[in-house]
């Protein structure tokens, strides 16, 4: 179930990162791209449930760690969206994936030429805004006064820790300025197609068997059409 994959690093090196997978060399091989930051934790269980269902439906699937994420030993503050995108492209080739299922901010990392499903993609600026807001609210509770402007000014030059995540200056700039648009070859899975309460909004981690069924079914049907 768990193995490693050789992942490119931002400094040109390579490191073994963990990959969770159900590999029985079937025709359809789905690369799962998890959300970044806090939503990675919120979705971990749900992603495992989706992978179990894909397995039952006859599809192999793989969930690789990206550098700085999950069990990776790489520092999060050195990571960028641009490099994570390179890593996803590399994982796609190494795994010989036929399809990609990306979730939320993971949708930003999908290569343009891949057949992909993008579940409930989010805007980069919205993610940054939410992180800054969490920091401001925590500061306020602690009796400290901070403003979004001064925090972002610092972040652009020397990076920042927001809600427990160390963001380097390039990642901050990417979150602030990147415009997400679905790449050619992708299909959006809107949450309305899945139904139920969106898991990324939950304060506590949760999972939902009905939603996992719906997402796995959409991906498996799409795959068998081709």
């Amino acid at each position, binding site marked *: 179930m768990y193995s490693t994959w050789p992942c490119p690093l931002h400094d040109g090196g390579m490191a073994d990162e963990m990959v969770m997978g159900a590999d029985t060399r079937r025709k359809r091989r789905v690369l799962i791209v998890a959300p970044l930051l806090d939503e990675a934790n919120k979705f971990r269980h749900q992603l495992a449930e989706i992978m179990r269902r894909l397995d039952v439906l006859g599809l192999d699937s793989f969930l690789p760690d990206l550098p700085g994420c999950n069990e990776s030993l790489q520092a999060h503050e050195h990571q960028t969206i641009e490099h994570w995108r390179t890593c996803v492209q590399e994982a796609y080739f190494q795994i010989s994936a036929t399809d990609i299922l990306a979730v939320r901010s993971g949708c930003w990392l999908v290569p343009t030429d891949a057949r992909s499903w993008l579940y409930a993609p989010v805007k980069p600026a*919205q993610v940054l805004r939410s992180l800054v807001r969490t920091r401001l*609210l925590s500061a306020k*509770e602690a009796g400290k006064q901070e403003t979004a402007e001064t925090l972002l000014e610092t972040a652009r030059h020397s990076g920042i820790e927001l809600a427990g995540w160390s963001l380097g200056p390039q990642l901050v700039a990417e979150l602030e300025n990147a415009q997400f648009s679905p790449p050619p070859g992708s299909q959006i899975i809107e949450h309305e197609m899945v139904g139920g*309460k969106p898991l990324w*909004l939950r*304060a506590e981690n949760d999972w939902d068997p009905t939603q996992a069924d719906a997402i796995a079914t959409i991906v498996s049907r799409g795959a068998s059409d081709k």
Partner: protein
Amino acid sequence: MTADTATAEPTGPSRSEIDQTLRAILRDVLGLDQTQVDAFDADTGLFGHLPELDSMAVAGLLTEMEDRLDIVIEDEDVDGEMLETYGGLLAFAEAKAVEG
């Protein structure tokens, strides 16, 4: 599903829409049941009353309000009063919707 607002005053359709959207956001963000959010009235306590609404959940709540209501919430807008009761939060959302 009713379209009653949190106040007893007569309301227009857009106000009901904001009310319904706000209830749905609270349901989704806080993991509440639909029946629980349907029963909210203007005096229903939120921050400090609902254990689900901690500061992390407040950040999620505000971001989701911006997204679904197409409003912008400035950080200085956020105070204890707007989050204290459902009526206060609805009045805030309505005022922001008018601004927008």
